[in-house]
């Protein structure tokens, strides 16, 4: 007995995949990721202990950075420059004489999901714009 299958939505799927491909090199993705990175960066800087009387070396908060990397890659990096602040590890994890004052993990734990959601919503918005454009509707 012959069986017939009818698959619906293939055109939509094709357009969605084409929209994903189209935003691949979009510089706006990097911008969205950078906005998320700024939130984490600000939180880490605010949590990092600061001694205004310190006259030597680099303040830990000044060693925290956002690395944007090459424009064609849609990723950013939030980190600590260990050359500038080799004590960063001891502040985060503690040492022989004190238990530390964590600044990195709290920012990631408390804001990570929010930032991921923000990036996800931003990318979804871009995809919607591309998808609508491919359907002949208004596109930004």
């Amino acid at each position: 007995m012959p069986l017939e299958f009818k698959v619906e939505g293939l055109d939509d799927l094709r357009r969605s995949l084409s929209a994903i491909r189209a935003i691949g090199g979009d510089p706006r993705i990097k911008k969205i990721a950078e906005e998320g990175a700024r939130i984490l960066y600000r939180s880490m800087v605010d949590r990092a202990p600061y001694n205004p009387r310190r006259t030597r070396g680099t303040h830990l908060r000044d060693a925290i950075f956002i690395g944007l990397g090459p424009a064609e890659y849609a990723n950013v990096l939030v980190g600590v420059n260990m050359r500038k602040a080799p004590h960063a590890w001891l502040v985060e994890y503690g040492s022989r004489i004190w238990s530390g004052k964590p600044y990195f993990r709290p920012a990631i734990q408390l804001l990570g999901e929010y930032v991921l959601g923000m990036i996800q919503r931003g990318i979804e918005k871009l995809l919607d714009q591309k998808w609508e454009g491919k359907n002949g509707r208004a596109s930004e």
Partner: protein
Amino acid sequence: MPAEEIIQATLTGDAALTAIVPAERIRLRGDNRGIPMPFVVHGPIVDRYEPTFDGVGRRWIGVYQVSVLAKTAAIARAAADRIIELLGGLRADGVNLEVTGRTWSSGRDPEFYHHVAIELSGVG
């Protein structure tokens, strides 16, 4: 009972661990000066209270750090392994924690030490 108290009781009540680290050297996070090695300090790094449907609320612990500091790597490793055995999958009196990480470092401040930081997360 909060996680700190349950962890303190669990660690100080274990004969195998206290044979390596005396019970009086197992403490909450703070100033470590004056504590002879090996010692263990523990406490929450990230936590917050979340509302629940029954209105009671619960404490979410993003990171709970248990630090082992010892002069030799062998002692640090033995104590850390025992702590992971004791606290891995800890479920007691509203506390539910899982081991999520373990990092190893060493330094000199002023004497040489090994530091194993065990991370847990869960509810407590």
